[in-house]
């Protein structure tokens, strides 16, 4: 029976990426010179596990690279080599290279093989250099003296016949033999019988094969482990031709080890099960996101069914009515508990996003020649997986901006009487049904004068306009706005902050900025905990009910005719908090017959989206409630102004408005 190993690839990649995150964070916390022993062990386990997985699943290059890395880590683990800053840098580069290789393998895309080879050679050169310099190490690698092997040594005969692509896959037998030599006395004989003339050969192909004789007291598992990552790249046989002497000194008969002499045509020996970075809680299981989503969807349906039954139960009379209503109340409590439990399954700690920043800050600070400390708090705060996946890039923009524009140079900080080490902080916390993420720094803060000058130069504000502090800070979210004199590859092209805001708004959140000149700036992002349920305001338009997300809703008001002005092109505007907002009549937008046509007969709900505010004219407000989001696009495609649908308690369908899209579409239609 053959097992399709590709079914395990997804888990291997997920676990390997998690393991690399762990390796990276551990490396960043290393104390150069005297790292915590357990940290070195943890990193070693990461490399070892990825190597094993890479070999098992046929990713030879990954296995080969991690094999070299593991050799270096073994030297560090055994304290034969000291952990220096260059070695830390090399290990961090290895994390990058492994990520790139894994990503390429996952997406079946090519990767930069040269950088892999270069780094692998650097690692091996480092090991060799160290060994060459180690006292008493000369010529010990290949054939230690016979006395070096313990008296109870076994002679192993090993035959290795690689397949022709062996070298091209980045596998180097010299590495394997070097490692094998550490177990005892090794004699290597190369077989050149298949080696053609140098003129006729393809020099990238492997024509050599080897016979090895190893006298060692190492256990068979240890010897096999040296070859484990070769997998199907070669024909390998391993035979014990003499057994250890019995305790009484009598020699037992030579016999092959039970599983040590497989058929010559058999692939590499079986590999022990691989376990990558076992989570601290051994009671957890890994479940596909689609299964969780299916569960959430079903619970959503239950919530709707419950709401329908509740409505029906209100009309029930008779002796069973009280019992029914009591049962419905109990069901409601259970439903709420079930819903909360299921929603928690999708929640992940924000540390999965925050964890990428220590490395980024370290590297970028080095490039910018700044000294920066990153402080992270609240990393255990949990957030919906989808929100987490989408918040990474906006946070990246903010941190890069802080590093590049916020934190001053060491000289600048000294002149301002600050510590020469700047601080960037990232915080996450729950506030009611939302999560607040804060990114701040103790740098120079926003330069209001410069922002206004740039905005005037760009024509964003008039020469005589007087702006409040809030309005000035708002300017940085304009597309293309930057105060940087020179655009670098770090930041300054003005494509950041507007993208940050639009990404946050797309997630149903908002972003605020608080800045104090000379003392730093703080960006506060408020996000909903989940995208599966939304707090909504239900409004009536004609015979339809629409849901307005509460995060987009500012205020509702009834306008008097005197508050409304019709401008030249027929558009209606009304005054709202020192500005004029256009009126968007929802019945016109959706082509419905309204109950109220005059503005004073209905209500206007002020909403915000796409950086603009408008007043939505509706017939009535029906109430505020949590609604379960049902995607429309799966069945009906994209509908202008609509983000999704939901099912109300009475079983009717209500559409959830996409405020940003609605504002954009309304403006477009009016302009047309």
């Amino acid at each position: 029976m053959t097992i399709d190993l590709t079914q395990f690839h997804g888990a291997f990649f997920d676990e390997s990426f998690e393991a690399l995150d762990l390796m990276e964070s551990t490396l960043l916390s290393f104390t150069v010179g005297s790292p915590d022993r357990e940290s070195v062990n943890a990193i070693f386990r990461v490399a070892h596990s990825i190597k094993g997985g890479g070999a098992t699943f046929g990713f030879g290059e990954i296995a080969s690279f991690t094999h070299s890395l593991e050799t270096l880590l073994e030297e560090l683990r055994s304290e034969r080599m000291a952990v220096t800053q260059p070695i830390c840098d090399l290990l961090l580069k290895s994390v990058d290279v492994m990520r790139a290789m894994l990503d390429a393998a996952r997406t079946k895309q090519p990767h930069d093989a040269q950088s892999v080879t270069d780094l692998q050679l650097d690692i091996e050169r480092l090991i060799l250099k160290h060994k060459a310099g180690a006292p008493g190490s000369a010529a010990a690698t290949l054939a230690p003296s016979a006395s070096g092997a313990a008296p109870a040594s076994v002679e192993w005969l090993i035959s290795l016949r690689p397949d022709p692509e062996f070298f091209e896959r980045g596998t180097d037998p010299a590495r394997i033999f070097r490692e094998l030599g550490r177990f005892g006395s090794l004699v290597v004989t190369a077989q050149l019988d298949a080696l053609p003339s140098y003129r006729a050969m393809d020099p990238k192909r492997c024509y050599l094969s080897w016979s090895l004789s190893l006298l060692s007291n190492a256990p068979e598992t240890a010897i096999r482990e040296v070859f484990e990552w070769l997998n199907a790249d070669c024909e390998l046989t391993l035979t014990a031709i003499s057994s250890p002497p019995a305790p009484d000194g009598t020699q037992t008969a030579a016999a092959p080890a039970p599983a040590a002499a497989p058929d010559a045509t058999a692939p590499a020996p079986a590999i022990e099960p691989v376990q990558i970075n076992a989570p601290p809680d051994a009671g957890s299981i890994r479940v596909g996101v689609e299964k969780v989503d299916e569960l959430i969807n079903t619970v959503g349906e239950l919530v709707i069914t419950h709401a329908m039954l509740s409505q029906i139960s209100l009309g029930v009379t008779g002796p069973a009515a009280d019992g029914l209503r009591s049962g419905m109340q109990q069901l409601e409590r259970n439903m709420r508990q079930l819903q909360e439990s299921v929603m928690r399954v999708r929640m992940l700690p924000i540390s999965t996003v925050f964890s990428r920043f220590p490395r980024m800050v370290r590297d970028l600070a080095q490039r910018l020649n700044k000294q920066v400390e990153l402080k992270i708090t609240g990393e255990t705060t949990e957030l919906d997986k989808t929100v987490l996946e989408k918040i990474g890039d906006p946070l990246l923009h903010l941190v890069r901006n802080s590093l590049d524009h916020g934190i001053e140079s060491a000289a600048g900080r000294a002149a301002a009487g600050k510590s020469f080490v700047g601080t960037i902080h990232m915080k996450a916390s729950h506030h009611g049904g939302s999560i607040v993420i804060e990114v701040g720094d103790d740098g120079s803060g926003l330069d209001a004068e410069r922002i206004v000058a740039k905005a005037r130069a760009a024509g964003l504000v008039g020469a005589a306009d007087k702006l409040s502090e809030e309005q000035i800070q708002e300017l940085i979210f304009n597309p293309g706005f930057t105060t940087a004199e020179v655009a670098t590859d770090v930041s300054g092209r003005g494509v950041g902050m507007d993208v940050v805001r639009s990404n946050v708004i797309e997630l149903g959140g908002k972003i605020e900025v608080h800045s104090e000149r000379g003392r730093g700036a703080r960006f506060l992002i408020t996000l909903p905990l989940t995208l599966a349920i939304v707090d909504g305001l239900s409004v009536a338009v004609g015979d339809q009910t629409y849901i307005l997300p509460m995060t987009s809703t500012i205020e509702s008001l009834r306008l008097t005719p005197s508050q409304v002005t019709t401008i030249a092109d027929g558009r209606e505007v009304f005054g709202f908090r020192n500005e004029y907002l256009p009126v968007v009549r929802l019945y016109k937008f959706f082509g419905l017959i309204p109950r109220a046509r005059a503005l004073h007969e209905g209500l206007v709900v002020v909403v915000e989206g796409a950086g603009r505010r408008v007043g939505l004219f509706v017939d009535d407000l029906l109430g505020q409630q949590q609604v379960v989001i049902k995607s429309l696009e799966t069945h009906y495609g994209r509908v202008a102004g609509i983000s999704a649908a939901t099912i109300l308690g009475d079983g009717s369908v209500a559409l959830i408005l996409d405020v940003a899209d609605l504002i954009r579409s309304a403006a477009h239609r009016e302009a047309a």
Partner: protein
Amino acid sequence: MKPARKKVRRTRRTSDLPPKSEVIVAPADCTVRHIGALRDRLCEVSDNVRTITLDLRDLQRFDSATLQLIAAFTRDQGARGTNLLTCGHCAAWDEAAALLGLTATLAGAPEAP
């Protein structure tokens, strides 16, 4: 009757003669991805050259594929009776040759039967 042609003994010009010796300089990177360059240089060597010097002083990177190619070259040139010399090889080269069991081959010793 045609006048008898004077027999002219043809002599080979110096430039036609195979060079007595040639030097092959190995490029800095001879790992498997770049080994084609080294093979091309080896193939440029005349067949009848008496002495070949393999200059490894520029060699920065090599792997088992490099040693395999040089082993084939050494064996073939040895069979042809060419005197092959190497210069500039480092300790890492010697170590790798020993690890791969190619020390004797690279030293130009005849292959074991």
